[in-house]
């Protein structure tokens, strides 16, 4: 199948004289008042790995959705190998030779791998023939798949493999990947880069969306940078530094975190988790097995790991959303709290920021002040007797707005009307302003743009410096290395020993996240 595509030079550095695979000119897409894409020009050549860089909301996904036919541009043209085309749907895109790997995978959990693959093809092929092709492509590219497994039983890395193989079966000339490494371990990401390099050498063009600058510099040939829906630059990332790329993306220097390791005098143990063990809650759940660690006042302990290795269960047990089997499995501020509810744990000085902003950390259709009351009614002065003190709740909203630069239209809007980054600043700020003795936060900057992420990370560091204990569950290794004092890795419901961050390399961390060194689980 690879023979169909013109071969390119070794490094995949494309000759400029070549006809581009795809060239967009003046693409405009509006959603109501918002101009998501404003006169975008983009050119991708054969054999090229082309990065599309930008913050959240810069218009990257909108642009590729137009290339894949999921959205129609309001104006502008798309040329495919020199010919003007109208791509009126994904099927049309596939016919041209465009394949796409989605950020939130477009897979079907209750179907098998083979069925998932068949759904992305245009039909007319027998199941046996498809199975043969599937086996051949996965062998050719070293992307192992078991066709009869159900998708819900697979890991994230395996799921991504399905998406990629599914695209390769269509022998695409252009492969679009939307933030493919966001959910992978470093080792899985390296495997992906090797595959992509090989595809580029076969002459295929790759359009790669990301906001991870180091990846772009390592293996992309060209980068188009978007900001607020406009192209602000095209460059060769191999000749740029992370700082110059970031400046183009954000339009200003990214605030770095200061004061990160003031000497950490070991404070009292604020959170002690002792041999926390739980059964699997359902077929998607993970059983926790003997998880033990301490978090002391003044430090940030990060728990790294690939999603779905027990982080959700751990958070639920610490926050009190799930009661533990034994009372002493979770102790907050020295008191056994394994059977206590969320409110009682808050009264012990704990605060919690779950991963999901909408629907878990905040009730989407309630106003911000109502949301402040929801987590604060037990411990702050938001109640006068049995009555809600509206003015106090509004004061909390104002304080968070000011302290965390929450941008919103009205004084007290619905939570759902805030952008992701601003709502995250609000839910983190709401807890931090209560000055908790212990803050447990899951994925504090997940899907948040760099500016908001910097504010949130600085606030976590400041909180720890004031003597609180911070437990941060995160998948973002950059973030962990930036602010954590100690780190532990969770894998398949077990936790590694806690290491000081200085003693941990990202390679070692990757191995731990992938399940190597399981033996050191629980050792301390």
């Amino acid at each position, binding site marked *: 199948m690879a023979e169909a595509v013109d071969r390119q030079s070794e490094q995949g550095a494309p000759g400029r004289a070549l006809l581009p695979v795809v060239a967009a000119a003046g693409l405009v897409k509006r*959603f109501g008042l918002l101009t998501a894409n404003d006169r975008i020009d983009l050119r991708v050549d054969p054999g090229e790995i082309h990065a599309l860089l930008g913050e959240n909301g810069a218009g990257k996904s909108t642009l590729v959705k137009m290339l894949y*036919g*999921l*959205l*129609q541009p309001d104006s502008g043209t798309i040329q495919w190998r020199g010919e003007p085309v109208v791509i009126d*749907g*994904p*099927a049309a*895109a*596939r016919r041209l030779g465009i394949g*796409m790997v*989605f950020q939130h*995978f*477009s*897979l*079907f*959990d*209750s*179907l098998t791998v083979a*069925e998932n693959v*068949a*759904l*992305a093809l245009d*039909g007319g092929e027998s199941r046996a023939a498809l199975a043969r092709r599937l086996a051949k492509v996965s062998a050719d590219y070293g992307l192992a798949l078991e066709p009869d497994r159900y998708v819900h039983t697979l890991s994230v890395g395996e799921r991504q493999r399905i998406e990629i193989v599914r695209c390769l079966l269509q022998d695409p000339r252009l492969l679009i990947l939307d933030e493919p490494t966001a959910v992978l371990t470093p080792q899985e990401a390296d495997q992906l880069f090797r595959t992509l390099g090989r595809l580029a050498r076969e002459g295929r063009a790759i359009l790669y969306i990301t906001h991870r600058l180091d990846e772009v510099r390592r293996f992309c040939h060209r980068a188009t940078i978007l900001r607020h829906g406009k192209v602000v630059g095209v460059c060769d990332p191999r000749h740029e530094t992370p700082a110059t790329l970031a400046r183009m993306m954000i339009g200003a220097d990214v605030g770095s975190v200061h004061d990160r390791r003031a000497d950490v005098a070991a404070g009292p143990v604020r959170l002690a988790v002792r041999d926390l063990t739980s059964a699997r809650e359902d*077929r998607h759940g993970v059983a926790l097995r003997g998880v033990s660690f301490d978090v002391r006042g003044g430090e940030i302990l990060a728990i790294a790991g690939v999603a779905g290795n027990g982080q959700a269960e751990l958070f639920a047990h610490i926050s009190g959303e799930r009661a533990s089997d034994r009372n002493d499995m979770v102790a907050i501020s020295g008191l056994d709290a394994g059977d206590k509810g969320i409110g009682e744990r808050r009264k012990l000085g704990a605060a919690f920021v779950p991963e999901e902003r909408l629907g878990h950390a905040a009730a989407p259709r309630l106003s911000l002040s109502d949301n402040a009351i929801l987590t604060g009614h037990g411990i702050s002065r938001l109640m006068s007797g049995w009555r809600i003190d509206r003015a106090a709740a509004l004061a909390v909203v104002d304080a968070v707005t000011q302290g965390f630069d929450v941008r919103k239209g009205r004084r007290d809007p619905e939570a759902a009307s805030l952008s992701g980054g601003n709502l995250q600043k609000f839910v983190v700020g709401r807890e931090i302003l209560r000055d908790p003795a212990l803050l447990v936060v899951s994925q504090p900057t997940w899907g948040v743009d760099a500016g908001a992420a910097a504010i949130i990370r600085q606030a976590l560091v400041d909180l720890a410096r004031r003597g609180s204990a911070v437990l941060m569950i995160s998948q973002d290794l950059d973030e962990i290395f930036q602010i954590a004092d100690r780190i532990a890795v969770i894998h398949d419901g077990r936790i590694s020993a806690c290491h000081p961050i200085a003693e941990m390399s990202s390679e070692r961390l990757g191995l731990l996240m992938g399940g190597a060194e399981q033996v050191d689980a629980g050792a301390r």
Partner: protein
Amino acid sequence: MDLATAIILTVVTASTPLLLAALGELVVERSGVLNLGVEGMMVMGAACGFAAAFTTGSPSVGILAAMAAGMAMAALFAGLVLGLVANQVACGLALTILGLGLSGLIGQGFVGQKLEPMAKIAIPLLSGIPVLGPVLFRQDPFVYTSFALVGFAAWFLSATRAGLILRAIGDNHASAHALGHDVLMVRFLAVLFGGACAGLAGGYLSLVYTPFWVTGMSAGRGWIALALVVFASWRPGRVLFGAYFFGAMSIGQLHLQALRGVLPDFLVLPGQFWSALPYAATIVVLVAISRARGRGGAAPAMLGTVFAPDR
């Protein structure tokens, strides 16, 4: 014809309308749409089927009219929940209320009229088999259709590409849309199919089961059909079992009540108890099945959620 054969025959007639309606709803729900209006579509099928058959004198026209009525109701539902992205539960309930009212209006002129029961079609040779012959091979077209539909639905869902797309849409409509499948069209066709099946089930009631029209004659069967789909964990084969189990229980309780004089006194329970028994027993049995089979209990993940593609 002995008593046993007679009882089994009545079980078949009691089960067929449930089976037809439940199969239609099963396909609808596998596509991710929850249509609670089965009762309304069914009773409209009964009224229109009877009206058409009585007016034209042709049972075939009656059957077609019953299906058309069910589909018209389904199309109305689809327009609301697919086209206008309305709440499926509210629209389904409204559809039932509308169907019950509208069918009373349509059937008003036909109250007290009577049709000739539809002729049974005997399959040569096979119908001569004792007991099984009359039960299985000397039936009206509805019964044959209902069996054929079970096989068709099972084959369609598991072995065809269209069935795969329908299941995929029920599992994750955003992904299916991203892959270029027409979510709304597939759901529209599924809802129409469900309407045709419910209409057919209603037609069976007024053309075969009791060949006359009575207001509200669906008598809750649409709701039973809905429950059967859930307890059968969205599998056609289990719907067949569930429908016949419920049919057998509902006929059985009538015979048990008739034994009142024969049974010892302590077994003489109020009639309401026996009337309730089929419902309770069916739930217990189907819950036991879906628990025993473990993984099969999962509902289509998108069931009852709305989908509006941005464009």
